[in-house]
């Protein structure tokens, strides 16, 4: 298998796992503690290989989520393409940041992602008004260092570049 094709397979597999993790069933009380795995994976790959994963990938993932979630078509697509764009734009700085600073940047990106979604939901109906709506972003920041290490090892092991 060519390195190109192998890289594509790894990217596809990591996104597929992230999507499944996003829709894993669980009790309602656990909802605020589930981070947006797809957004985290997207941010990592946009930072590591911005010439392969960027706005187009983010948009496609968003459409997939919109269909699986039953949400308005284009809602998550817009949010994911925006965070992919910002990450690709800032990838040289993000790569240089110490791990904690990177995690804070990820928190900002995840919050932008959620903000866009809540704006759109507010525009078409009633958006969730609870403070718990924002906890997935904070959980995302907390798990980021582990996501980073795991995906970096995956990238090195299979030489995705």
């Amino acid at each position, binding site marked *: 298998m060519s390195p190109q094709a192998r890289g594509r397979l790894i990217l596809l597999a990591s996104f597929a796992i992230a999507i499944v993790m996003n829709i894993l069933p669980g009790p309602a009380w656990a909802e605020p503690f589930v981070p947006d795995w797809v957004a985290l994976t997207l941010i990592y790959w946009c930072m590591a290989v911005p010439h392969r994963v960027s706005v187009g990938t983010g948009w496609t993932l968003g459409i997939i989520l919109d269909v699986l979630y039953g949400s308005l*078509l284009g809602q998550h697509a817009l949010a994911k393409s925006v965070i992919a764009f910002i990450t690709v734009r800032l990838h040289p700085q993000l790569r240089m940041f110490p791990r904690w600073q990177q995690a804070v940047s990820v928190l900002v990106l995840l919050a932008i992602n959620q903000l866009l979604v809540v704006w759109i939901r507010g525009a078409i109906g*009633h958006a969730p008004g609870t403070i718990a709506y924002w906890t997935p972003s904070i959980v995302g920041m907390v798990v980021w260092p582990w996501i980073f290490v795991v995906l970096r090892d995956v990238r090195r092991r299979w030489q995705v570049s």
Partner: protein
Amino acid sequence: MITVFGKPLRGPSPLTRLVLLGLLSAALMMFDHRGQELDRIRAGLMVILYPVQVVAGVPVALYHGLIDLFTTDKDLKEQNERLEAEHTRLLVQLQQLDALEAENTRLRAMLGAASRVADRALAAELVEVSTEPFSRRILVRRGAQDKVYIGQPVIDAHGIVGQVTQVASHLSTVTLITDPSHAIPVLDNRSGLRAVVFGSGDQDNLNIPYLSAVADIKEGDLLVSSGMGGVFPAGYPVAVVTKIENDPSESFLQVRARPAAQLNHGKQVLLIWPGQAATTAKGKAP
């Protein structure tokens, strides 16, 4: 360079792509919100992505399998006895119901009112996945194939669950009455007061806004569907009032209710076709 899942193509800069895809998203959202043009595309995508949902449901299926494995003969016998007792009790109630129904029809005929027709129901199995965070939707294994339609009412043994909002060939999405975007017209079963019940996004809380301080509503009142709006048939339990707050600085009462349906339990719901029983369950009326 455009890259879709790591497949590089020559193309415009990230900013151009963001603007183009952003506009496309906006157009999609507008069409999806306002019209039905995108329903077929969504239905197709739902079918294509169904395997992902099956995979996501595997852990729960394994868990249920494990529980089945440890269910003993004794448990089953006990359950059987319990169900038989329940069955007998329900049969007794049903006998009375037949008499009441006949009486109701006679009375309605005397009043010249349209007689209430029973509803056809079809059981639908839930697909064990979660949907958008902080929304309340469920996915069921029935679709266009079973003549499911958008706006169709969904109930369970205890009350109204929600309504169908998306339909694919074998699957449909049901928006629960607790979803923040859902509203249902109701009637207070005790006083006859009309109100609208809104979802709160919280799994066991519903809001009833716009009721004045003198409205005849009490804690513990049962709210049933009023049939106004034409989506839900009249007379099904929707919610039970749990809390009424009268804040003098607000112009309306703060009324909270708990859904009558068991939205978080059970693996099945019922899809209903209001007023179709005469032609399906009992054959063509003479």
